[in-house]
C-alpha cells in the first residue's frame, strides 16, 4: 500500500578471497551456477504463490488447519483412541456378517444375545457421556 522508493544498488568490491576461490574451483563453481538455475525456478514458483495468495486466503487456510488440529488434539487422548478403535473394529466386523432387516420383535429377541447386551451397554454409556458433554456446553 505504501509507495516505496525503488531499491538502489551500490557497487561493491568483490573480495579477493572470493575471486581466488572461483579461480581455484572452476568445476564446483560451474555446478553451483547450474544449480542456481534450479533455485531460480523454485523462487519463481514461490513468487507465484505469494502473488496468488491474499490475507483472507492465509487466514482461511490457518483457520482450517487449526480446526483440524483441535479435533486431532481431542482425538489423541488415549481413551478416545481406544474407543475409536473399538468402534472402527465393530464397523468392520459388522460388514463381514450379512445384516438382515429387524422389526420390533426381532430387536427384542436380539437383546437376549450377551454380545448385543454388552454392545447396548456401551452405547448407553456413550449416550450418557454425550449428554454430560451437552450439559457442559
Amino acid at each position: 500500500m505504501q509507495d516505496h522508493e525503488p531499491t538502489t544498488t551500490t557497487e561493491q568490491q568483490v573480495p579477493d578471497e572470493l575471486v581466488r576461490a572461483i579461480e581455484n574451483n572452476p568445476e564446483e563453481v560451474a555446478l553451483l551456477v547450474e544449480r542456481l538455475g534450479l533455485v531460480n525456478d523454485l523462487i519463481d514458483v514461490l513468487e507465484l504463490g505469494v502473488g496468488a495468495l491474499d490475507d483472507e486466503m492465509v487466514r482461511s487456510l490457518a483457520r482450517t488447519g487449526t480446526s483440524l488440529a483441535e479435533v486431532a488434539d481431542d482425538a489423541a487422548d488415549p481413551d478416545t483412541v481406544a474407543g475409536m478403535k473399538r468402534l472402527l473394529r465393530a464397523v468392520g466386523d459388522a460388514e463381514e456378517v450379512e445384516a438382515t432387516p429387524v422389526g420390533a420383535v426381532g430387536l427384542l429377541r436380539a437383546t437376549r444375545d450377551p454380545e448385543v447386551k454388552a454392545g447396548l451397554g456401551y452405547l448407553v454409556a456413550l449416550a450418557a457421556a454425550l449428554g454430560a458433554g451437552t450439559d457442559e456446553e
Partner: protein
Amino acid sequence: MTNRIVVVGGGTGGTVVSNRLAEELASEIDDGDVEVTLVSDDTKHVYKPVFLYVPFGLAEPDDGVRDLRELVDERVNLVTNRVRRVDTDETRLYCQDGDEVIEYDTLVLATGAKLDPDAVPGFRQGAHHFYSADGAERLRDALAEFEGGRLVLSVVGTPHMCPAAPLEFTFIVDDWLRSRGLREDTDLVYTYPMERSHGKPEVAEWADPILADRGVRVETDFVVDAVDPDERVVSAESGAEVDYDLLVGIPPHRGDELITDSGLGDAGWVDVDQRTLRATAAEDVYAIGDTAALPIPKAGSAAHFQAFAVAERIAAEVRGRTPTKRYDGKTVCFVETGLDEASFVSFDYETPATMRQPSKPIHWAKHAYNESYWLTARGML
C-alpha cells in the same frame, strides 16, 4: 494426600499453564494424586491482539473470543469466581462470590494487566483506544468518519500490553489513510513517554527511519499528564502540548488489586525471581505473564514461554525432583509495518532485540499465527 495446584486467571498465561500441567501430570491427576484448578472471573477467553485489526474493519472482536471451557483440558477443574485475596500463610484464596475459599499447595498467578483510563484526567472522555472490544469498535466508527486533520497516537501508559501495538497501529493507519486518499490531508503524530520512540532501543532505532519515511512526526519524552477533550489538546508533564482531531491513546495499565491487597507486589505486579518466576514474598507462589514484574515487555509470547517453564517446574516439584527449568526472558513479537507487510522482533534477557526486514510472508505468518492461536492456548504450540 492430593497435591492441589491452583491457577488464577484465564488469559494466555493461565490457560496455557493449566493445559501444560494437565498434559505433564496426566497420570498423577488420573490417579487422584494431583488436582489442577483454574479460577477465572470470566467464562470467556479473550485473545486481545485481534483488537488491533478491528478499527480498520479487518476483524471483529468476537474473532478473538472463545469459551474457556472449550480451551481447557478436561482434567482441569474450572471455577468461575473472582479471587479477592491470597493468604500466603494459610495458602488459601478468598473469592468474591459465595465466600468460596480455595486451598492450594502451589499457586500460579496469571491475573494479567487491567486498563486504568481514569489514571490520566480526560483520557476516558478524549481518547480512543483499541485495547478492549468496545474501545476498538468505537475507534472503528471514529476512523470511518475521519476525513483528515491531525491524528495523534499517544503512548500514555507504560508498561502496557503488547509493546509493538503503538508502532503497528501507526504504520497500519498510515497505509489505511493512503488507501482512502486521506493521508495528504492528515498530520500523523506519534508520542512516546521515553527519550526514544520505543522502550527497546533496538526497536526504536529500527522504527525511526520508517516513521520518518512515512512522514510521521515523533514527539519523544512526552509523558502525558492530561487530555482536554473540549479543547482537543493532549498535554505532557514537560508542559508540551499537541492538539488533535482524533486521539488514539495507549491507556494506562495496572495490575490486579488482589496482588497489592495480598502484599505480593506494588501496582499489581508480583515481584518474582526473573528466572524461576517464583514470587519473592511466598515460596509456593509463581507469577507469569503480565502479572510478573519482569524487565521485559508485557507480551503474550512471554506469557506463553513462561507458562511452559512454570508447568515444567511444578511437575518436577510434584514428583519430588529439584526443578531445573528456567525462563530465559525469551520474547517474540510480530510487528505489522502496514497493511501488507510485517517484521518480527525477538530477544531475551541476554540477547538484544533483533528486527527482521519487513515482508509479506511475515505479515501472513502473523495472520496465520493469530488464527492458530487457539492451539497455543490449548498448550499444543
